[in-house]
């Protein structure tokens, strides 16, 4: 049976709509989520189907409505918070890190916080330094929070459903440059467990571990590498926590060389953690140091040529991988 193709945005919307139909406790709260359907038009049509009581527009007040969602989750609802730009999670940090992440633990399991925070990451949209960052490493650092980074429409739908059904807080990062990406998405109700990596492409010579939109970059680089006779494996962890360490290590053992790609800042970032996991688990099977590629350690510039230079591209990943594999 030929599968339907949906865009990434449509896949997210379908997951939300299906979950809201399935469970009346699921609701949406955030800025411009109702009639506007968010600036990225991800939520278009939802307020029409579910009404303003379940798709709630708020003032510009991230700390406030995130706190409202934490409380609502503790008292019986399953809110999905929309933080328009991932840069704005700075305002929600106390609610997420000190309240949502801790309630289940500090109440001895009495309270649960079944909420999802959906937000965005990713540069190259010409949105300048305050609207272009990828800050998912921050939440990945905190015990009690789960962090999801879908890379395809298929993964987006399956992972978002799992996140909504989780009994404690999950942060769901969508790359704003991927909303128009198309891919097959089944119509049926399926879920993808958190903490299970996906080998997006099998290869023998080098492993490209990549998250979110960097998976698409890695797949593009793999095609360029193939022309040079280098077989690249692309592994997508899909969640930074829980983390499927085994799949990463097994792939590293298979190919002996690894580049880790993530659009967050390289310094103290997701790439550092993934590289360390691989170095610890596969040290005696590595033929080269694990290489990290992430955002340059600068505020993301507005200038298009400068912005393009701050993040890994198919070409830069291809060149780095070729340099690791080609004999001197």
């Amino acid at each position, binding site marked *: 049976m030929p599968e339907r193709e949906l865009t990434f945005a449509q896949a997210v919307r379908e997951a939300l709509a299906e979950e809201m139909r399935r469970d009346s406790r699921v609701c949406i709260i955030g800025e411009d989520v109702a009639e506007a359907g968010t600036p990225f038009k991800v939520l278009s049509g939802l307020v029409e189907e579910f009404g303003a009581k379940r798709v709630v527009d708020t003032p510009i007040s991230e700390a406030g409505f995130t706190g409202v969602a934490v409380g609502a989750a503790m008292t019986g609802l399953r809110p999905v918070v929309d933080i328009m730009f991932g840069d704005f999670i700075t305002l929600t940090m106390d609610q997420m890190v000190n309240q949502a992440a801790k309630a289940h633990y500090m109440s001895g399991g009495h309270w649960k916080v079944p909420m999802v925070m959906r937000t965005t990451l990713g540069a190259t949209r010409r949105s300048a330094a305050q609207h272009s960052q990828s800050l998912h490493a921050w939440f990945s650092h905190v015990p009690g929070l789960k962090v999801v980074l879908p890379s395809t429409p298929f993964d987006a739908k399956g992972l978002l459903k799992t996140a909504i059904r989780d009994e404690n807080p999950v942060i769901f990062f969508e790359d704003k440059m991927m909303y128009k990406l198309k891919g097959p998405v089944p119509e049926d109700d399926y879920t993808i467990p958190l903490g299970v990596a996906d080998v997006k492409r099998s290869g023998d010579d080098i492993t490209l571990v990549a998250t979110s939109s960097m998976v698409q970059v890695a797949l593009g680089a793999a095609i360029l590498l193939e022309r040079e006779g280098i077989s690249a494996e692309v592994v997508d962890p899909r969640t930074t926590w829980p983390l499927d360490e085994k799949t990463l290590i097994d792939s590293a053992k298979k190919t002996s060389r690894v580049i880790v790609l993530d659009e967050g800042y390289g310094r103290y970032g997701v790439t550092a953690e993934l590289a360390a996991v691989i170095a610890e688990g596969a040290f005696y*099977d590595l033929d*080269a140091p694990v290489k990290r590629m992430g955002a340059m350690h600068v505020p993301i510039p507005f200038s298009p040529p400068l912005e393009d230079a701050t993040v890994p591209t198919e070409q830069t990943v291809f060149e780095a991988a070729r340099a690791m594999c080609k004999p001197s």
Partner: protein
Amino acid sequence: MAFSVVMPALEMAQETGKLIAWRKKEGDRVTKGEPLLEIETDKAVMEVEATADGILAGITGIVGSDIPVGQTIAWIVSPGEKPPVEKDAGASAPAARGKTESHAVPVAASAPAPTAAAGAKISPKARRLAKELGVDVASVRGSGPGGEILASDVQTAAAPTAAASTVASAKSANVEVPSTLGRLMAERTTQSWTTVPHFFVTRDIDATALNAYREKLLAEIERTDGIRITHTDLLVALTSRVLLKHPQLNSSFTTPGIRLHDHVNMGVAIAVNDGVVAAVIPNAHTASLAEIAKQRRDIADRARAGKLRPADIADATFTISNLGMYHVDHFTAIITPPQAAILAVGSIADRVVAVEGKPAIRPMMTLTLSSDHRVADGARAAMFLNDLAEALREPQNSLR
């Protein structure tokens, strides 16, 4: 100052040693006590440790060659220091026994051309594979982006005669190159099996008394000597005492004749990672049970850590191989020449046996003696087993 590294004499009669591998490369920093090279004598492979801190330089010892004891094969120098020029650069001439003092050759000229640049980098995977495959990395040329030695380089170097093959990427994953110990084991067992006429005599033994005796002494010896005695320890003690009455089985088959020994140096076969070694408990016929237990545990620990000395494996007069812990019922063992016999011990397990005309359950153990027929015959072997069975039935009579 420069310290010379010489081919050491590890045994009294040793004249040459075969250089198996350098653990360090030219230009590597070494620390006193660190393993520096491996040599093989006719009995064992040994690690030789660095005798000083410094930089390894002026290597003249060629891997694979037999080198006279006492000959300088490298230097340990201070950083920046040049190794002294040896008057006698005989290292490259194999079996250069008679030293000639005449020609002075600069060290650089006689040193083996290093194929890997001094301090060449090697990947963790390549380093592991080199160890597993027994490849000397000093002789491997790196193909990494910066000249690093990679896994494929080591695999190519390890593949016998396939170096010239164009299939560089062919993986030799299913071919295991034996370690030095594995190679020695292969050579020795082949030599024994093809030249020593083996025959085997088997006997089932009721181990009730042996178990009871061990139970009785276990706590006592643990309290007084801090060691738990094992069935192997008891077998070593009893067998060595019984052997005194059967010198043919405690003898060496040599060219001039059969040498009968008046003492028992008991070899105990110990399984290690890459093969089996027989470490020796000297004068086991006079040692107490506690002494035997301590010595056996010591050699077993050192065998597994790869720290046996040549003396630990030399001059056994008889060997016991116990596979009881692996739940083997019985097996036949291969004799270690020049010894004349080896005892193979199976597990102690409850079996139904006839006792006074009725079936009964007893802890039974099967012993199989392999003997060299040039030294002993079947009747002799049977008499020995008979006496051993007697000793096992009443262990206290032999040991107290």
